[in-house]
């Protein structure tokens, strides 16, 4: 089985978010970048397929040279090959078109992408990639098993979960649950050394349209002071929620 894992290079979850150039660009100053958490769950599940079922695992990312350390980390975790599509990831549709080309050319059986990146939260790349390449797709995937050419997948739905089967090739939008948090791997020294020797191929993007563009960013208004209520007077809280906030 050939697996392709799509990786986004995103600010660490603890990052403070700021913008520059008149609030038109994300300020990367002092920001630590990581593998997008939703992608990391998928990558870790791919490692399971590699170890238990002999799958090969490639990783791909759309980004500039600055994203290479994130791809190297994926190689250190255990991916076999990395591909960087040399373009800025600014529109989900554009990114999906780039990834679709790689997915098709590589003849992958399973493509795993995070259900969304934690920076732009577009949440559209996995589905678009599946539709462009015309293969089956399951989103918000929290479990996957593959036997022969058939996958059994578990999807998180609002208020529960749903199990389905689909023939490969398949694209999934993955998230926490594909593996447990405690199964995520920190690359060891051997992995890091080996990652340096593994191929990281840089390819140029194909011609493709951008359908959307983030033109301006804005931070939320600073929050007003909290209204404190005495623990012996919870009636006051109920009164405030009813009459002032009007939420109960």
């Amino acid at each position, binding site marked *: 089985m050939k697996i392709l894992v799509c990786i986004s290079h995103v600010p660490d979850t603890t990052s403070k978010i700021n*913008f520059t150039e008149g609030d038109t660009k994300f300020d990367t100053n002092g920001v630590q970048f990581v593998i997008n958490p939703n992608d990391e769950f998928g990558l870790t599940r791919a490692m399971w397929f590699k170890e238990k079922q002999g799958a090969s695992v490639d990783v791909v990312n759309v980004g500039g040279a600055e994203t290479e350390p994130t791809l190297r980390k994926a190689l250190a975790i255990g991916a076999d090959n990395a591909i960087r599509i040399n373009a800025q990831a600014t529109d989900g549709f554009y990114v999906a078109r780039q990834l679709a080309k790689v997915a098709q050319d590589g003849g992958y059986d399973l493509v795993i992408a995070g259900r969304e990146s934690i920076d732009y939260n577009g949440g559209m790349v996995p*589905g678009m990639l599946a539709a462009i390449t015309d293969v089956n797709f399951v989103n918000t995937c929290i479990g996957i098993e593959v036997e022969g050419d058939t996958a059994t997948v578990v999807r998180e739905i609002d208020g529960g979960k749903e199990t389905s089967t689909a023939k490969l090739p398949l694209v999934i939008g993955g998230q926490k649950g594909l593996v447990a948090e405690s199964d995520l791997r920190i690359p060891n020294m051997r992995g890091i050394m080996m990652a340096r020797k593994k191929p990281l191929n840089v390819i140029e993007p194909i011609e493709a349209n951008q359908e959307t563009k983030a033109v301006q960013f804005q931070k939320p208004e600073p929050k007003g002071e909290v209204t404190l209520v005495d623990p012996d007077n919870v009636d006051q809280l109920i009164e405030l929620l009813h009459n002032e906030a009007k939420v109960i």
Partner: protein
Amino acid sequence: MSILVYTESENGAFKKGALEVTSYAKGIADMLGTTVTAVSINGGDSSELGVYGAEKVLEVKDDKLGNFNAKAYASVIEQAAKQEGAKVVVVSSSSDSKFLAPLLAVYLEAGYATNVVALPESTSPFKVKRTAFTNKAFNSTEISSDVKIVGLSNNAFGLKESSASAAAESFTPSLEDSNFGVQITAIDKATDKVSIADAEIVVSGGRGLKGPENWGMIEELADVLGAATACSKPVSDMGWRPHAEHVGQTGKPVASNLYIAIGVSGAIQHLAGINASKVKVVINNDAEAPFFKAADYGIVGDAFEVVPKLIEKLKEFKSNNA
């Protein structure tokens, strides 16, 4: 060129989110001087959509569409959009809508903006405000394609009644077998509980509750309020509560009207995930907990004393206001 809106149903009735996206679509239609057409698949009583601004409802009744199927549903909406010549398609942020919308975007070659929180800032260029960086920021996104898909964030617009009355029309899309490549074998859904996605109120517990055995009062409080229950990341990592309850940056996003955090300290990742909620209440015995900086109302006190009192008083309040 009406505005097309996909209105979801559950057990033969429209979901509240369906009424919200209809209200929102009506808002865009007014800006563009056009009308709203809804697509309903094995749906509820179409006249209900009229109350929120739909003038026409395309009713699809097909047993093959009894279970949600993203590809087939996207194909139905695509065919409806083409028939109506719709330039704007509105969907909700339910897990099903977020599943089908990217497919629809490809079928219609449409730019798609998710997590949109308000009516377009302008319609030419078409610009919408959405959340980004998991609620740590907003961004204005311009959609330049001919057809545009807008995904409205839950509870961002609310319900707005309108004077339209909906004309129902039967719609029979063509459905290819190739749409049914993903086949559902089991659905496991708690029918007696409110899901976090659909909830107007969410009650959330953190590590301060000391152990899973203490969740009884969280569930009781949620029950009194008709709320969903949620938890912080450490609580789900320790296995005190199911992963599906984990809310935050790597868990589920919450955009409820009221979010009550009990024994949750308020790590930056947690706050990001729940920040879209309108009103936040924190109950914590540590006055220095970061959550107090993010909350609208707070009680510094022992949850094991405050919460039972709150439950008791809320029951009184509910019976007086029933």
